């Protein structure tokens, strides 16, 4: 008998504090597996967000540096410019990247900073108790959109990944999800590819991962995944948004 599935090396043994069924835990594992398989653990530096994943550094067994809310792309720019041969990634939620951090994200992509961005889109501000996020769906109830997100008051959910695809410096942008094993496997492929884009010095890469937040959706984990599958994907379709990588070595 051989073990065919276990904990990746790049994750510490610390049990996750995330809620039952939270997508963060899965995505952390996929990032760690990618780092393991690409054998880059010893030269990777990660920048976590403010948000539920603020404690990401307690889980990833790599060098990690805290950034203020939204500023991860600018901090990562500094790290990568100082250490161009290291692999630098940010791990950010939807508020971090597409509300407060929009300018820093767009400009890092526009400059073609050779960093990798993991964008966890769960449509809500989880850590602070479930407020509206830039990617909250129309009609979705949150603590600051009683009665549901209303386009007149709140605008429509923002298509940050599509916006970033317009920038010249972005090279690879894909949207995936973790609502099923099949999609989880696709997410991992995308994350690994995004890291390889950086390893080959091609430019800015980003993977947007649709993720369930059962607690703030007030659903069970299974129901939350069904919500991602049936509703979130209609606003945020799973696809390769931009791929100018040519043939990766």
């Amino acid at each position, binding site marked *: 008998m051989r073990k065919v599935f276990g904990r990746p090396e790049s994750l510490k043994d610390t049990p996750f504090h995330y809620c039952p069924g939270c997508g963060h835990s899965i995505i952390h594992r996929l990032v760690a597996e990618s780092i393991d398989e690409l054998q880059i*653990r*010893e*030269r*990777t*530096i990660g*920048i976590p967000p403010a948000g539920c994943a*603020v404690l990401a*550094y307690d889980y*990833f*067994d*790599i*060098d*990690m*540096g*805290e*950034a*203020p809310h939204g*500023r991860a792309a*600018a*901090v*990562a*720019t*500094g*790290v*990568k*410019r*100082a*250490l161009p041969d*290291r692999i630098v990634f940010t791990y950010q939620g939807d508020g971090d990247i597409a509300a407060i951090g929009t*300018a*820093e994200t*767009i*400009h890092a992509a526009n*400059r073609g900073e050779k960093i990798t961005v993991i964008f966890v889109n769960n449509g809500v501000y989880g850590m602070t108790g479930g407020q509206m996020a830039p990617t909250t769906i129309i009609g979705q109830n949150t603590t600051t959109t009683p009665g549901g997100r209303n386009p007149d008051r709140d605008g429509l959910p923002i298509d940050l990944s599509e916006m970033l695809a317009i920038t010249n410096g972005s090279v690879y942008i894909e949207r995936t999800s973790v609502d099923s094993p099949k999609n989880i496997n696709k997410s991992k492929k995308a994350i690994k590819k995004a890291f390889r884009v950086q390893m080959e010095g091609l430019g800015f890469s980003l993977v947007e991962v649709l993720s369930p937040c059962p607690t703030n959706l007030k659903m069970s984990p299974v129901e939350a995944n069904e919500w991602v599958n049936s509703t979130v994907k209609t606003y945020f379709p799973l696809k390769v948004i931009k791929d100018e990588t040519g043939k990766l070595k």
Partner: protein
Amino acid sequence: MSEKRLLRGSHAIGEAAIRAGCRFYFGYPITPQNELTEYMASGLAALSDGVFIQAESELAAINMVLGVSMTGKRVMTSSSSPGISLKQEGISYLAGQELPAVIVNTMRGGPGLGNIAPSQGDYFQATKGGGHGDYKTIVLAPGTGQELADLTRLAFEYADRYRIPVIILADGMMGQMMEPVELPEPIDPASLPPKPFILDGAKGRQSRIIKSLLLDPPTMEEHNWKLYRKHQMIENEIPEVERYLTDNARLVVIAYGTASRIAKGAIKRVREMGLKVGLLRPKTLWPFPKKQIVEMSGMVSDFLVFEMSTGQMLEDVKLSLEGRRRIHFYGRPGGVIPTPDEIAKVINNIYFKEGLETEE
């Protein structure tokens, strides 16, 4: 080889930074300090290991500084008053994470958009922690072209030694003036001692975390007291002043930066008239040279605080003296630059009103 050059103030800062081994600069255009940003752009472009980015905002720039500092390299940003307001979040993080960095503020009129003329209205912002939380940054106040270079070099040393952000508080006038400056031997960044806390990939060692988040209140408290003890150590080690004609002075003017230069001119004039006046010029605004001021109060009965503001350093002078002596104040905010004659008149009025003795 050190060399002497006639340099614009902002260029003196830039050249000194590069010679201090700084290879990373992030900035944003804002009057009256664009000459520094532009100097760094061409200076760093000429170096194979120089990195200059004109960031999308002052906010982005300070966060790029944060990133570079995590890797242990010397890094600088600069701006003027409103832009420094934007950097406060980043400065708070640098302080909380105990990361070295140099931030240059070429002060202008304020608050709000203010104007582009020189002023000293950011003293509180610089010395009382313009960002949130229990922290301090070292604040250096150059008073001459030479000091714009010397204190820039010192800023990098202090930042590394104490793992703390250092602010160089200049103003629009100092940035523009041309003076001969003796520049020191350049430092090769590779020769700087390695830092044990940096992030550069966990090869052959445990992975590291750089953070300021300490959710457990007792742990946070411990960290706050640790920073406090660091501040106490800095307060014991580095306060610095210049004493100008203070030996037999009965009234001492306290001023820094451009105000101190104007004050010197005024003091020369009143000395000719027999008034015994001197100048105490703080070179460090934080730590504030309390001890030196208290020492001076041994022989001096009156202090005149002169600032290009409505009175900010004034409060620190009052706190230092704790009522021991009479403290007078003269301020010109808003970017107005008073003349030495004007200050001489003010000194004259106070001197005679308080019945101080003159030289025969």
